């Protein structure tokens, strides 16, 4: 099967466009600090002819899978000749190495300068080929192709959609220099979206991944902007008297929930994504903020101090009915609905520690995912399996990620800069 991923690559164009430009860069490293209980042992055999190019494919595939915490890489050392096609994979040899699955592939230059990349995933327990695909790509598309292959393998073996082709947005602070950046989910290829000498916060991806909403203090007050990632053009969509903050996209990408103070107090409004027609949707005498849409678009979860302490509530936009969701503790904030609609991730304060936790709406079961003490701003991967959040390490802000069951833990550290406010982007458009 030949898969031409033109539209998909158009999405990736932003990330790819600077690959030819040498970047002055600080090193961002991902450290896996805790592994899952059960990991799938998988061997990624270097692809045939891969050594022709400085950046191959198989190494990136293996790094993606291992970093997810769901896989353990099995050594391929000493296997001669290396298999490049499914039918060349000798099951007993790999079973002896305790591998359950083997990935093989090849890379072949084409007359037009592009490269034919093929791979197969073999279940060596059942002795069957699970998937085989080929891609015709340019050298600049190797990394994006590797992430796509890792996504396919991840989905075949775990049943969940992979997020290796997604991107993350985050904010760095170096002295008084603030930058909003977008990078691949593995931290590669960071691109500056906006720079400012005043704080930036709350980046939020539009559902189609083409725009970011965020809050900037560059006008000596919080103002909500929406910026196109394709053109760089931006617009102040909420710049009313008072403070304008906490943007959140509706699932249809046409509306934003925002917190405005123009009518007194921090209250939640819905407005068109271009800034028109702000309408107040919640009313309280105290603070209402941090609204997020539930995946069905019919409700908002939000933080309010209407009960005396900050707690999380859910409001049905049709009926207007408001229901309190958190009861345990005196500080529960920053709700982030899970994509399955069944629960949310949020931040709780336990003593003086701020921790990321999950709440199941039906059972009211809470699970604490992180230890704190200063964890904040969680953002859920589009497959609902990982949560990226802001934490502290070495006296600086760092990013960290944890699996939704709390078992896999990663830290993303960049030296000399504070990193904060991560936002996990949506699945790429197919």
């Amino acid at each position, binding site marked *: 099967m030949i898969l031409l991923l033109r539209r998909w690559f158009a999405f990736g164009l932003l990330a790819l466009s*600077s690959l030819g*430009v040498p*970047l002055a*860069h*600080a*090193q*961002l*490293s*991902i*450290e*896996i*600090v805790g592994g*899952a209980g059960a990991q799938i042992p998988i061997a990624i055999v270097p692809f045939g002819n891969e050594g022709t190019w400085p950046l191959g494919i198989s190494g990136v595939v293996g*790094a993606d899978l*291992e*970093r997810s915490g769901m896989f353990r890489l099995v050594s391929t050392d000493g296997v001669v000749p290396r298999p490049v096609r499914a039918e060349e994979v000798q099951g007993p040899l790999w079973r002896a190495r305790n591998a359950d699955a083997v990935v093989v592939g090849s890379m072949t230059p084409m007359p037009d300068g592009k490269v034919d990349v093929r791979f197969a995933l073999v279940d060596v327990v059942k002795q069957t080929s699970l998937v085989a695909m080929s891609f015709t790509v340019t050298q600049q598309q190797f990394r994006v192709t590797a992430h796509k292959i890792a996504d396919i393998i991840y989905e075949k073996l775990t049943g969940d959609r992979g997020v290796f082709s997604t991107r993350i947005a985050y904010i760095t602070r170096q002295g008084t220099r603030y*930058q909003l*950046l977008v*990078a691949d989910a*593995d*931290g590669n290829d*960071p691109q*500056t979206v*906006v720079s400012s*000498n005043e*704080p930036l*916060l*709350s980046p939020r991806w539009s559902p189609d991944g083409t725009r970011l909403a965020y809050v900037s203090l*560059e*006008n*000596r*007050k*919080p*103002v909500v902007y929406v*910026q196109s*990632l394709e053109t*760089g*053009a931006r617009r*102040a969509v909420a*710049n009313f*008297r*008072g*403070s304008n*903050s906490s943007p959140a996209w509706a699932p249809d990408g046409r509306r934003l929930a925002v*917190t405005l*103070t123009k009518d*007194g*107090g921090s209250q939640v409004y819905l407005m068109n994504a271009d800034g028109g027609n702000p309408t107040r949707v919640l009313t309280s005498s105290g*603070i209402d*903020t*941090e609204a997020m849409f539930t995946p069905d678009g019919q409700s908002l979860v939000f*933080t309010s101090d209407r009960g005396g302490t*900050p707690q999380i509530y859910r409001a049905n936009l049709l009926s207007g009915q408001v229901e309190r969701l958190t009861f345990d503790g005196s500080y529960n*904030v920053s709700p982030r609905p899970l994509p399955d609609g069944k629960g949310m991730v949020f*931040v709780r304060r336990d003593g003086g520690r701020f921790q990321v936790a999950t709440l199941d709406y039906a059972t009211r079961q809470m699970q604490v995912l992180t230890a704190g003490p200063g964890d*904040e*701003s969680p953002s859920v991967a589009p497959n609902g399996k990982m949560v990226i959040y802001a934490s502290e390490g070495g006296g600086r802000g760092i990013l960290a990620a944890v699996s939704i069951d709390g078992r896999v833990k990663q830290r993303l550290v*960049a030296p*000399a*800069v504070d990193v904060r406010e991560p936002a996990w982007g949506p699945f790429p458009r197919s």
Partner: protein
Amino acid sequence: MRNYLWIALIAAALAGCSTTPTTEAPVDDRSATAGAGAGSTGAQTGGAAGSGVTGSAVGTGAGANPLRDPNNILSKRSVYFDFDSFVVKDEYRPLVEAHARYLQQNRNARMTIQGNTDERGSREYNIALGQKRADAVKRMMTLLGAQDGQIETVSFGKEKPKNAGHDEASWAENRRDDIVYAGE
């Protein structure tokens, strides 16, 4: 199971690292604030008002701007709050009353009250907390005769701490409203 793996990844956290369309957005600025475009100003408006005033007064004789006279209470611009509190403490009552009186006597005067919080907790929730503190001082001033339209309340949340420390003394300095008059 605990396994340690370090994967070196590339991050360019430096300015001007590429020329793609996403770099340096054109500023479509709806406000009239001078020099406030993205990346164009390093002005620290939050905590500078109080400390910058003392040394920078030019005219000091009779008839000097009372807002800049270090001997005038109107040069005092900060109101501090207790933890988790929005109550304007009695010790700041004379300051708030003086500014309210100034606004009442100078109907063209406009001020912004900038609310701030300490570093603990959610960034967005702290924006709302800071707003509540700014609103508390505004409410008091309007009760004392200032007009609603003279005062805009905004919040910097925990984004612009006056003191970058991580202890109670630093936090106390950051739980604060700053008063800034238009044109300052």
